[in-house]
Each structure stands twice: as structure tokens, then as C-alpha cells.
């Protein structure tokens, strides 16, 4: 056994351990997955929608919010026009119920804080202009707010009408996130309150000082801060929000670099949480293991690339040396092709398919192989490479100290 085999076994052990851990969390809570506490009353709520050049989407977004299944007198909407140069403001003015604020372009967090000053309702919801909540979105979430110490409730985000390859991959990824976010909720370790659709208690949000305007991902930062100040974050697995996903690799790359760099920055900012039992499972397990995951992804990507570049190149060379003639196969399928690694391969395949299946089952979707098979296949074969590339690029950018821009 060589060093590389030992490295593989360690990496596989960590992957298996994490999968089993989340599986046990799921198994323990499997009957509570779809449970949302019944709301006793309908608290007043304000939607904050920062918008920068969103003339195409903002109308649809506002329509969907105004037609939510919720008492109309309890629902307010504020759009913060963040220095748009298109007709965003004109579009918003068509809606009489919607308050419009305008500011010079200062970024999303500043826009949210600007809007937060005008909020006098009990709850506040953040929404992106390119996202649309489901009709029952609020009803599913507000029950949690009646619990003490709960500061925020996160929704279940889905990709709207996936068309391109990248959107199809993200469509599956988001379903997986929906499932995983609920497990994180049960394990009390959510560290993101996603931009589109998270709701907060207004007094708590104001007390902790609103959103951090000097942060790549203000939605991660606020979650860390709420956890730090001793508040709970809940999740509703069927409060759906549909959002526009980046259609191209380039767009997705930029988005993920921002997300992951934001994550890295916030982990540094809240590094006191790492391995600190005061912060429960998040500090004790999730943050340290995420750190390990970066190395694992890097290791897997580079070892696979090396494999491709070195071993497969040698086979190619050997094949070229016989002028690409087809050899009669010498070794047929037999016991000699099965070993230790085959076991892991099948194990990972089974775990992957199981994860895919529960993700679909618990996000209210149907398997629908006839239409969605290409989604699943591209997710299985392309996503692991994408995610490794994004993480490694983020780390490189972060180390190189590239200018932090949106």
C-alpha cells in the first residue's frame, strides 16, 4: 500500500463519516421534515427588495409578493433602487402599495440597511428582485417566529425555469441544498440566511446592527452574527422561493467566487467559533469540517487531474505506439477487476443516488426521468469538478488578495 492509497482512505473515511452523520440526522428527524409550526397570528411584515437595473424582473417579483397568501393589511413592500440606470423606478411606481427608495449605487447591504430604517413592522423579509416567492411562502415560515430566541427563518430556494446546462446543474444542486439546509436546521448549524426569502425579527435585526456593508456575502455575515449573539435560525423546507440562476459558466464562476470568498472572509471574521463548543455543532464540527473539505476537494481534483494527465496519457502513448489498432480484449470482466476501490465506488454511487433521491423527494419535486435525466447526469458528472474549481479558485483569489469586488 502506497502513501497515495492511505491518503485516499483517509479522504474516503471523512466523506463516509460526513455522509453517515447527515444520514443519522435525517433518520432521527425523518418524520419532522415537513413539519412547520402552525401560526397563531399573522404578524405584520415588510419586504425589502434591493434592485439594481432590474426593470425586466421587478414587476413580476412585486406581483408575486402582493398576491401572497397573507392578510393584505399586514404586508408592506419597500423597493430600494440602488442607482439603477434603467426603468426600474418607473416599473415600481406602477404599484401603488409599494414604497420606493432611491440611493446612489452603494451595494446590496447598504440598500437593505437604508430600507430597514423605514421598517416599522414586526418582521422583515429580504427578497431579490429576480426572485419570486410561492403563494404560501410566508404562512409556512411565520410559525417559527413565535418561538423564543428565533431571529430568522430561511426558505427553500429553487432555480426558476432552468434552460442552460449550468442552470440545470444548479437546479439539482439547489434541491440538494433545500434538503441539506433542513438537516442543518435540525443540527442547529445554519450559517447562511440566503438573500432571497429569509425573514427576520425586525427588533433583533436592528439590535445587532443591520447588515454588514463591507462584506462580500452579507447574508452569510448576518447569519454568523445572529448565531454569535445567541439567536436561533430556523428553516422551512417547503417555503419555496424561485430565483434566477446564472446561465453561463462565467456568470456562475463569478457568483461562486463571491460566495465562497465571502464564506472564507466570514469564517476568519468569526474564527473564534471554530472548535468552540459554545457554538454547538457549528463551532465543534461544521466549520472545522468545512475547512477540511477545501483540502479534500483540492486533493480529489488534483489527484484526478494527475491521473488523467499521467496514467491515461501513458495509455494513450502506448496505444499510439501501435498506431491506434484495436486489440482483442485480453482480460474480460472477472474477479481481478474488483478490489477495495470497487467497494468504495459502489458505496459512493449508492450514497450519491440516495442523496439525489431524498433531495428530490423532500423538495416537492418529481423524479421525472424522461425530462430530468440530463439534469441528473450533468449534475453527477460535471458538478463535482465545477465545485472543486470554484473552491480552489476562491482560495487562490483570497490568498493572492485580489480586489474584493462584486
Amino acid at each position: 500500500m502506497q502513501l497515495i492509497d492511505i491518503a485516499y482512505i483517509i479522504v474516503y473515511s471523512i466523506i463516509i463519516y460526513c455522509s453517515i452523520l447527515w444520514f443519522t440526522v435525517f433518520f432521527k428527524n425523518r418524520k419532522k421534515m415537513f413539519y412547520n409550526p402552525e401560526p397563531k397570528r399573522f404578524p405584520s411584515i415588510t419586504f425589502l427588495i434591493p434592485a439594481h437595473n432590474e426593470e425586466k424582473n421587478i414587476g413580476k417579483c412585486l406581483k408575486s409578493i402582493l398576491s401572497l397568501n397573507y392578510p393584505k393589511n399586514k404586508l408592506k413592500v419597500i423597493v430600494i433602487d440602488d442607482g439603477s440606470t434603467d426603468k426600474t423606478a418607473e416599473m415600481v411606481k406602477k404599484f401603488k402599495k409599494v414604497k420606493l427608495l432611491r440611493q446612489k449605487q452603494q451595494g446590496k447591504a447598504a440598500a437593505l440597511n437604508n430600507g430597514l430604517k423605514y421598517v416599522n413592522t414586526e418582521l422583515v423579509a429580504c427578497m431579490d428582485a429576480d426572485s419570486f416567492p410561492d403563494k404560501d411562502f410566508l404562512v409556512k415560515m411565520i410559525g417559527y417566529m413565535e418561538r423564543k430566541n428565533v431571529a430568522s427563518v430561511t426558505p427553500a430556494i429553487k432555480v426558476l425555469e432552468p434552460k442552460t446546462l449550468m442552470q440545470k446543474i444548479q437546479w439539482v444542486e439547489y434541491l440538494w441544498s433545500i434538503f441539506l439546509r433542513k438537516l442543518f436546521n435540525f443540527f442547529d448549524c445554519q450559517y447562511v440566511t440566503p438573500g432571497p426569502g429569509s425573514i427576520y425579527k425586525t427588533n433583533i435585526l436592528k439590535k445587532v446592527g443591520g447588515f454588514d456593508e463591507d462584506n462580500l456575502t452579507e447574508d452569510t455575515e448576518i447569519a454568523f452574527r445572529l448565531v454569535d449573539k445567541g439567536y436561533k435560525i430556523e428553516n422551512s423546507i417547503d417555503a419555496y422561493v424561485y430565483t434566477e440562476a446564472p446561465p453561463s459558466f462565467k456568470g456562475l464562476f463569478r457568483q461562486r467566487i463571491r460566495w465562497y470568498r465571502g464564506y472564507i472572509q466570514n469564517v476568519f471574521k468569526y474564527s473564534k467559533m471554530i472548535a468552540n463548543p459554545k457554538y454547538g455543532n457549528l463551532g465543534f464540527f461544521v466549520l472545522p469540517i468545512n475547512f477540511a473539505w477545501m483540502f479534500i476537494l483540492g486533493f480529489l481534483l488534483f489527484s484526478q487531474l494527475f491521473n488523467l494527465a499521467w496514467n491515461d496519457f501513458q495509455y494513450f502513448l502506448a496505444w499510439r505506439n501501435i498506431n491506434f489498432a484495436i486489440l482483442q480484449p485480453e482480460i474480460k470482466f472477472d474477479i481481478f477487476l474488483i478490489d477495495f476501490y470497487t467497494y468504495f465506488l459502489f458505496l459512493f454511487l449508492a450514497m450519491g443516488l440516495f442523496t439525489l433521491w431524498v433531495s428530490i423527494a423532500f423538495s416537492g419535486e418529481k423524479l421525472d426521468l424522461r425530462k430530468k435525466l440530463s439534469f441528473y447526469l450533468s449534475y453527477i458528472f460535471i458538478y463535482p469538478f465545477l465545485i472543486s474549481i470554484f473552491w480552489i479558485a476562491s482560495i487562490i483569489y483570497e490568498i493572492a488578495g485580489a480586489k474584493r469586488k462584486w
Partner: protein
Amino acid sequence: MVKRRIAWEFYIVSAAITIFILFMGIYLGIFLSKGKIEELKSELTSLKLKQEDLMFELSLFALNKNISCNMLTQALEKVIDEAGKLGDRVSLYETTEKIKDENFNELKKDYTLTLIRYWFYVEEIKKNCDKSNLVTVLYFYSNQDCFDCLSQGTILTYMKQKYPQNLMVFALDYDLDLSIISSLKRVYGVQKVPSLVINGEKYEGLVTLEKLSEILCKKYELC
């Protein structure tokens, strides 16, 4: 302020299950490894049985020249082909198996000696039967640090499939700790891998398909 707790029970249960899964994998690996060794052993036994059979025929041939040379070569060609296939599986086991059985080294030596004995038989037949178009190749390879060995092996496999009747390849591990291997290396002056000894003549380094075709066609008139 919410008091957060660490869910120890989940960590412990998951660790137990993970260890169980890992040990299952290792156990399965060892079990498979043993199974493969058994398979190799039984194939080697049958190969040796055929060898003994042939040995008697060769002895008879020495006594009585009435036995057909063609019959003998054909029989030999068949078993050497078999031996080559067993050799492929032996090296597949050696290069890919992570949990190697302790008996493997013995088995490989046993196999190599069997192969070399076949080579002696062929040389004997060549001498007694005037088989000028029968070409033997001793192929010295290594499983360590040999960039060209994969190519050389592939080229030989290709040629063997092209001239199944007249080409006999004996793949020998350069690093194997056997005195006959050292003697063969010394006799033919083999100092690096890959090396070919074609009908007693040494070629060092990668022998390309073109060069091998030329040697086999022009020198030994296989084509």
C-alpha cells in the same frame, strides 16, 4: 441567548458506522485478494500439469524422432499463449491489488520458473526441428520506474495477435529475485528496462512497432 449543545450521540453513532463500513471494505479487500491468489494458484497448477505432459512428449521425441515437429510446436504454442494470459493476470494483480497476499511473491516466482521452463522447451524444439520461422522474445519489464514498459507490452501484444503461430513472448520481471533471471540478464547483457532478447539477440530500450516489424519480417521472415 440560546444555549447550544453538541450532539455527541450523532458523532459517536456515525463514527461507529463509519468504522464498520471501513472494516467491511478492508475485510472484503482481503477476502478478494485471497480469492484471486487461489484462482492464480489453480491456473498455475493446471499450467504445470500441461508442462509435465509436454516434457514427456519431448523426452519421447528425443528417443524417437517420428513425432511430428509441427504437432509439438502447435501444442507448445497453445500452452505458452495460456501462460501469457496467466502472466497478464499476475501482473494485473501485482500492479492494482492494494492488499497483497503474503503468498504472492512465491507464486510469482513459481510462475516465472514455469515460464522459463517453457522457453527452454521452445529453444530445444527450435534446435531439433529446424524451425527457423519460430521467433522467441524474452521481454524484460519492470513494475517500477519504467515509462516505456506499457508501450512495449502493448506493442508485443499487438504483434503476438498478428503472428500467433510463430511469435512466442516470455515476459520476465527484471527485478525478480531469482538466480535464473540474473543469469539470463548476464548472459544476454541486459542492463535496463524495457529490453527485448529476440532469438538471442539483445535490443535495449523501446523497440517500436516499425522496428519490431522490420526485425520480424526482414530478419526472421515472419511476414
